[in-house]
């Protein structure tokens, strides 16, 4: 089962030619949280697919549901208060939501691994990094303590931690932020999983270290031909490494596109707003654009398009009808592969 499909490299989603099941497919996923204030609808019908060797970037503000989706895929949502009222998460064609707890546990870490944002709090403070890395081998492969430690050193070398042999018994707090994140990456890589979910892997790091960590991640992904879901709110991080992007807002995907097309020609006013709010050197002296208003309250998501109260293009229909994810086309009607926009006025947005 650890054989990765080298041939399935980057098939274009939306084309029905390939009948093979994608590595991961999320279908109409809904997640809600039952809180004292009411039911917070964190994810409202998300669809996406990731193939081996492919990188999907999921972009969105905090509260957009991007991390909750990831946690639902990993099966580490707190339930209750979390609940998945509908949807499917297919891993190699099998719905993980209907699996037994033990089946799911065997996928976690071994087939799908996760990298968390804050490595300092995500690593156990009282166990040495060698122990925490070796634990993967001891639990999943039944290696002895000694063998596991040797493997841990090997792993630390792989993610280029200097003096791995000397540092294997150190504790997380003794490493720098960048090194800790490398340890997180090493832990995720340990069993060479098919899919890695990286939840804001560089947000907590210094800018100079961010690039190193991202490069390492991209390189290792290439090497092992893994699928990668990169969750971020930072458009800058995405551009170099992602193949395609899904932009989320209020628990929905509002736009999907291959990465460079999205930057060139956004087809959703929200994406457009995000791109316009990046400072640019050639626009020095001008006032920076900001999307007005606040992210929506998930207990009371606005009717119609959730973005309509903040949208500069909103019309009457936007407050009434929920826009579906339209296939985006050129002016002449030719389909743009892999592009979709959940906006009633996507044509006006992309074609001006």
């Amino acid at each position, binding site marked *: 089962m650890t054989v990765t499909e080298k041939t399935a490299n980057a098939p274009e989603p939306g084309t029905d030619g390939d009948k093979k099941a994608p590595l991961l497919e999320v279908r109409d996923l809904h997640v809600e949280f039952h809180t004292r204030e009411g039911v917070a609808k964190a994810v409202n019908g998300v669809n996406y697919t990731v193939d081996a060797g492919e990188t999907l970037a999921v972009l969105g503000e905090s509260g957009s549901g991007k991390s909750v989706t990831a946690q639902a895929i990993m099966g580490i949502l707190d339930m209750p208060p979390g609940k998945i009222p509908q949807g499917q998460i297919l891993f190699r064609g099998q719905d993980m939501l209907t699996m037994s707890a033990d089946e799911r*546990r065997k996928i976690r870490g*071994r087939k799908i691994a996760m990298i968390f944002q804050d490595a300092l709090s*995500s690593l156990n*403070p*009282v166990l040495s990094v060698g122990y925490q890395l070796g*634990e*993967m081998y001891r639990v*999943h492969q039944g290696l002895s303590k000694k063998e596991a430690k040797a493997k841990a050193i090997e792993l630390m070398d792989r993610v280029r931690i200097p003096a791995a042999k000397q540092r294997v018994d150190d504790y997380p*707090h003794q490493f720098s932020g960048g090194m800790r994140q490398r340890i997180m990456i090493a*832990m995720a890589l340990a069993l060479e999983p098919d899919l890695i979910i990286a939840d804001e892997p560089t947000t907590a790091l210094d800018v100079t270290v961010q690039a190193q960590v991202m490069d390492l991640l991209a390189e290792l992904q290439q090497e092992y031909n893994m699928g990668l879901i990169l969750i971020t709110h930072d458009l800058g991080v995405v551009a170099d490494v992602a193949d395609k992007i899904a932009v989320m807002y209020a628990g929905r995907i509002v736009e999907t596109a291959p990465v460079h097309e999205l930057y060139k020609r956004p087809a959703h006013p929200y994406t457009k707003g995000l791109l316009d709010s990046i400072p640019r050197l050639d626009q020095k002296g001008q006032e920076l654009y900001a999307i007005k208003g606040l992210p929506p309250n998930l207990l009371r998501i606005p009717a119609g398009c959730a973005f309509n109260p903040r949208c500069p293009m909103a019309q009457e229909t936007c407050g009434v009808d929920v826009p579906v994810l339209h296939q985006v086309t050129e002016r002449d009607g030719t389909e743009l592969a892999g592009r979709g926009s959940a906006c009633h006025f996507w044509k006006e947005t992309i074609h001006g």
Partner: protein
Amino acid sequence: MGRYVARRLLQMIPVFIGTTLLIFLMVHWLPGDPIKALWGDKVPDPAQVEALRHKYGFDLPLWHQYWNYMTDLFQGNFGETFGGRQVSDVMGEAFPVTIRLAVVAFVIEVVLGITLGVFAGLKAGKALDTAVLVFTLLVISVPVFVLGYIFQTVFGVQLGWVTPNVRNSEDITELILPGAVLGSLSLAYVARLTRTTISENLRSDYMRTALAKGLPRRRIVGVHLLRNSLIPVVTFLGTDIGALMGGAIVTEGIFNVQGVGQQLYRAVNQGEGTTTVGIVTVLVLVFLFTSLIVDLLYAVLDPRIRYA
């Protein structure tokens, strides 16, 4: 680490001197005349009183008495009781009894307290958790002497499971009942503390990581959760040993355990300062050293703590 221990030991000296001085002053400075009290209601002979005063050094200024006491102490001489016995002999008899009682209480407190706390913490907000909460609330609210009588009446007299009074303190089974009473308050604290740290750590990021690693639940709880959650509990338990030994006055009285508490009760009521000061001195030493050990242990258990 050697430097840290040395520094801590140095810090302990003023605290040790201060505490012994304080208890010494409390015993000797406050009103009340233990020598005259020896005669009870009868009128004492002034010459005899003076002689006794001189014998115990009560005619000296207080600072001089303290100085004499401390110099004797460093030669291992704790002084003598009014009855003419060496205080060290009295303590030599009483302390083993109290230590046995404290150990029984400690074991009950650790085993039951941590077990209850772990289960409550894992089920935070559920019925079991609420039951443990109510149990600990009741235990904390019922004063030890009331609990002692309840246990003695129910288990000792009515059910007859154990003897209501301890006749032989070397028989551990006889110490279980008083041990449970003595350890009850700390048991409740341990349960609550464990419950809190467990439920707090349950929400921590590294627990989410452990889950994401695909570890079995046994391992997540047993290795990742317990290891972190028990650190503050160990700290509390460490400082509690001294408290159990010093807090046995009521329990020993109810169950007639011939330990330190009984000796203290007798000494305090008779105004016999030498015994009181002697026992408190030993208790203070126990307290100071357990605190030091706990601090060292803390640094062993939590690698983030450095000896500073």
